[in-house]
């Protein structure tokens, strides 16, 4: 993508996505989808039974490594000091919004920073910010654990998606971001239920109709997973989605303006040129 083409568009590309970085994101997405949805696909058929237990462990070990590959590829594509500083500051802000706005009830506003930032600063920036915000939040609040790579990946997808939303202005843009925030907030919870559902549901004393069964068909497991999500986490996911959407509607305008101003000031698109000394 040439500099001219970039500056002609209204959007800023804070973290350029080279071909290799794109391939890495696509690949980690493909593996990530597998890591998330394996409970739906695995193990129908009796001979899969012993292996259905070690599949999650493989993903738990390998997903962080793949995240490292993607991070290295993104950084290799040219992440300048401005992108690094903005990433750090915005990730710190999202990280503090998570516990302060009460992660317990689900009314948490983490995506409120992520979505406008991805929108203004581009999909590459959104993806990295999602990863980094989850990581920083875990580093600060002690939320680190085997779930962290999954959270990082899901938040990265949300930031990436926000950067890929179609062009819109004014109220239409706010409305679009709010709807996206609502959907992302709910979907995040549902998707994160998936990978631990086979472990989680068995210990909670829930009725058998919602637990993972390695012998059931895909459709049966799908409906069980949906029932599990609706009975356990929907009361967290809906408030999260609604809170994100409401915050975007109420405070999104000044937020977008501030981010656009900062992006303009940082002038990501202008290449640094060094003239030879005159004398």
């Amino acid at each position: 993508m040439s500099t001219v083409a970039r500056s002609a568009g209204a959007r800023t590309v804070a973290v350029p996505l080279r071909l290799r970085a794109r391939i890495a994101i696509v690949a980690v997405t493909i593996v990530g989808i597998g890591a998330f949805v394996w409970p739906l696909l695995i193990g129908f058929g009796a001979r899969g039974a012993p292996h259905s237990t070690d599949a999650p462990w493989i993903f738990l070990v390998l997903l962080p490594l793949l995240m490292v590959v993607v991070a290295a590829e993104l950084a290799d594509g040219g992440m300048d000091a401005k992108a690094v500083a903005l990433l750090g500051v915005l990730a710190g802000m999202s990280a503090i919004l998570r516990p302060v706005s009460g992660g317990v009830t689900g009314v948490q506003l983490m995506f409120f920073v992520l979505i406008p930032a991805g929108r203004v600063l581009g999909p590459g920036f959104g993806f990295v910010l999602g990863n980094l915000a989850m990581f920083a939040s875990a580093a600060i609040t002690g939320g680190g654990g085997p779930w962290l790579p999954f959270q990082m990946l899901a938040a990265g997808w949300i930031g990436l998606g926000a950067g890929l939303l179609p062009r819109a202005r004014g109220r239409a843009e706010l409305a679009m971001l709010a709807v996206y925030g609502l959907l992302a907030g709910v979907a995040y919870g549902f998707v994160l239920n998936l990978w631990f559902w086979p472990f989680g549901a068995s210990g909670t004393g829930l009725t058998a109709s919602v637990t993972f069964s390695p012998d059931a068909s895909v459709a049966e497991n799908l409906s069980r997973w949906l029932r599990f999500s609706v009975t356990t986490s929907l009361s967290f996911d809906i408030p999260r989605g609604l809170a994100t959407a409401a915050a975007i509607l109420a405070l999104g305008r000044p937020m977008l303006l501030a981010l656009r101003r900062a992006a303009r000031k940082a002038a990501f698109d202008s290449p640094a040129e060094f003239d030879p000394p005159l004398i």
Partner: protein
Amino acid sequence: MKPRLVHPVAWWLWAIGMAAAAMRTRNLVLLALIVAVVCYVTLARRIDAPWARAFTLMWRLALLTVLFTVVLQIVLGIRYPGTVLLRLPGTTLPDWSGGIALGGDVTAEALLAALTNGLRLAAIIVCFGSANALAHPTRLLRVVPAALYELGVAAVVAITFVPQLAESTVRIRQAQRLRGRPITGLRGLRGLLVPVLEESLERAIALAASMDSRGYGRRGDVGRAFRALTGAAVLVGLIGACFGTYTVIDSAADRTVGVVALAGGTAVAAAGALIAGRRTQRTSLRKDPWGWPEWLTAGSGIAVAVAYRIAVPNDVNAGYELEWPHAPVSAVLLTVVGVLAGVLTPRPPLPGARATRSPERQLAGTG
């Protein structure tokens, strides 16, 4: 013993060990003991630095967590049967909510459950606050592989930025109050959020300018063939990992092939990416030593975690009974092992004993 800073990785390992022990138990006595040990070590070994304030901040966050969990349990929560302390007018939400009630009977068991959960979370938060306070963040950055250097910097900026964010929130709130502007409600929130955001973004741009002016992000040249080779390794590895994923999941395929493709592909891709990252030539002024104090620090934390895994019964999913928690003597003694990190390690150097003025230090101070 010559005063020096213990390696940050050692402090993180120690803190993770203590946190892992706290995750393991729900015994109030043991949790209180873990918090006491962590506090003692932190107060004994922290230095006067911006990031050391993280500990106070985390303490506040931890207390808030306990309060929040208890209040939430009273207002809205799963109702435990037992000794009723308080009857609130309330209603049970429909079935889909999974047995959550609004108001209703508040039992002593429910309060105990909330208090225990809150304290456990608070203990974990205090452990990580301690790691943040004790570990020198920019020295920690030095152990990040070169390929992730940029993201490592961003993560350090994020973590050191949080206390500053709290400080600027308080300051802007005071300013708004002095001006007679509303500080509550939606308008108050907007009056707070927008200046905080603006100030943070300003700060980021200023930080970037100062990093640029110090030559941050300069890259060494690497050969074309080297780039092509590492790039090919990453691509082939990623394709292998994608193929392996679905072979692992697909019940009709041979899973061994899938596991090998997934693990091997990931390893090849990671190796390619990390080796390619060596393009950045970076030298460090001082190497951080890893000697016996580091082994002792990391070892004592890990020892506590391992001991809890073996000696303390996992009661995290047990019910809540109204009784005085009794802690086994062995578990108490095992927890005290964690104190060694604050007693036998060298003292930190006094402020001003050694003038450190590197760009990294500046970064930690202004990030």
